[in-house]
């Protein structure tokens, strides 16, 4: 039993990060129909910039805030210099552009930083807390709490503020949103900025546990994308459920079946889910109008 509890905790921790990445995917997708494969690089940048600013002598909290701000600028630049220029292109072209952007950002990180693994100090030390025979790192709780806080803030913002309403309107119908005077392009830019911020926070929260390096973004993007699809593309609750399920599947798969194939187990689950429910868990079944 303690093992199962252990798997559950580590699955939840990883799943929380996937959920944040998937939420970032969903925000951008809803605002602009863009599937942003550079989402994982935001996670990488959040971790790596914090590490290097901290090494340069900045106190950790300031380094973290600066890392988030820089990542937001990168997100805005991605929108302005790539996505916005390719408006009107097909979905495949846009996907390739964002994959190109992720290769580019990785290349930049490799030159500006280095190719080694880096860690950050855990926020509240690294003495494990014992619960029911399972050992939990305090940082895991930080990740869970941080993820929950971000999710709550995003949902509150979308639900309660006029800005959130504008995002929702843009997601529902871009033309109608423009007609009622919503600056759609600024909303899309905002969604890139928000996604970048969410990714950066996820990165700096999880780096004390998983370490970071210039190339952690690719797999993160693939997992986040998969989580978003598992939940149903475009559904924010789906993204979060999908992320957590994916993390749990990986953790239990690695513990009970084979640690070599933990990534494979996750993708097998996704394939089977899509075979049964082609629109994802929370996705709406769309009927194509002819």
């Amino acid at each position, binding site marked *: 039993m303690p093992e199962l509890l252990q798997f559950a905790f580590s699955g939840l921790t990883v799943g929380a990060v996937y959920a944040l990445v998937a939420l970032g995917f969903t925000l951008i997708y809803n605002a602009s129909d863009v599937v942003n494969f550079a989402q994982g690089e935001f996670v990488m940048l959040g971790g790596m910039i914090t590490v290097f600013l901290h090494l340069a002598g900045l106190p950790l909290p300031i380094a973290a805030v600066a890392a988030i701000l820089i990542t937001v600028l990168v997100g805005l630049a991605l929108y302005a210099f790539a996505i916005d220029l390719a408006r009107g292109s097909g979905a495949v072209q846009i996907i390739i552009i964002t994959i190109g952007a992720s*290769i580019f950002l990785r290349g930049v990180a490799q*030159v500006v930083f280095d190719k080694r693994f880096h860690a950050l100090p855990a926020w509240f030390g690294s003495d494990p807390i014992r619960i029911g025979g399972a050992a939990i790192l305090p940082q895991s709780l930080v990740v869970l709490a941080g993820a929950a806080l971000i999710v709550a803030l995003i949902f509150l913002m979308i639900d309660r503020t006029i800005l959130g309403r504008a995002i929702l309107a843009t997601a529902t119908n871009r033309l109608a949103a423009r007609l009622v005077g919503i600056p759609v392009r600024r909303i899309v830019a905002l969604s890139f900025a928000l996604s970048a911020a969410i990714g950066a926070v996820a990165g700096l929260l999880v780096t004390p546990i998983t370490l970071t390096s210039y190339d952690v973004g690719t797999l993160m993007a693939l997992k986040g994308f998969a989580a978003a699809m598992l939940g149903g593309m475009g559904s924010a609750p789906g993204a979060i459920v999908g992320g957590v399920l994916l993390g749990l599947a990986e953790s239990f798969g690695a513990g009970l079946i084979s640690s070599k194939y933990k990534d494979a187990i996750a*993708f097998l689950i996704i*394939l089977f889910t899509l075979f049964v429910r082609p629109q994802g868990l929370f996705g709406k079944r769309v009927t194509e109008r002819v």
Partner: protein
Amino acid sequence: MERLLRNRWALVLGLALVLATLPLAFPSNYYFRVAALVNIFALAAIGLNLLMGYAGQVSLGHAGFMGIGAYAVAIGASRFGLHGIVAMLAGAAVAGLLAFLVGRPILRLKGHYLAVATLGLGLLISMVLTNEAGWTGGPDGMAVPRLELFGMRLRGPDTWYMISAGALVLGVILALNLIESPTGRAMRAIHDSEIAARVVGVDVAAYKLKIFVISAIYASIAGSLMAFLNGHITPDGTAGFLRSVELVTMVVLGGLGSVLGAIVGAAMLVILPQALTIFHEYEHLLLGLIIMASMILLPRGVIPSLLARLRGGGA
């Protein structure tokens, strides 16, 4: 010029002519190697283009089939003592069979769901190649035994240039014939409107599956040729996600639905990074920039843009 580009036998003849005369301009074996790589990736891209450009189905995991072809010749020859050609055909059969088995459920998916499913398939293949180290040598890869034909050991890049060029011409002929066949018309109908195609009686699922299997076999043969050319293969180098992305980019960059485009796209994406290796550290950075810039500047692809210009100028 436009009519020339549209005539399929003119295209085949022109291609064969270019492939035959190019070596005269090659100063060293290095050029033969790069040109052979262009041929090989062009072959895979043509197959993927049938799927993407004609049947309208995206695959973000196509390098997985290249990996199957590459490892088939390496494992078949070293562990089972199969002749290289037999191993290559066995690889193509395995890739085709796998595509046949997973194709039906996967191709039911649409848009981004199809993208994630094919991506997952590609990742699964490359994970198996990475993890089954007893068979595949793991992440460091394995050596590929040289192919022997009529008592000769085929190893020089110039030899493999000739062989890959022959394979490419053959692949082009088969693809062009397929496009002109009833299957090709059905595919284009599916591309334009799946529902309309179904309404007029096209068995959409069966045709999609057929093209998926064909494109997998193209990729597998290309993978086998790459393994023979390089003499050493790794999971990332043959079946990795980045390879799949490169294949998709070649197809779109050259022009969706253009056989010639797939060749042009492959040539651009193989040769440009070779030219960039002098920038060493900046390789990824520049590759990312190239991919982004080519999609922003030429979203419709080189060949269709060129055709449109020719048409505009001629009229």
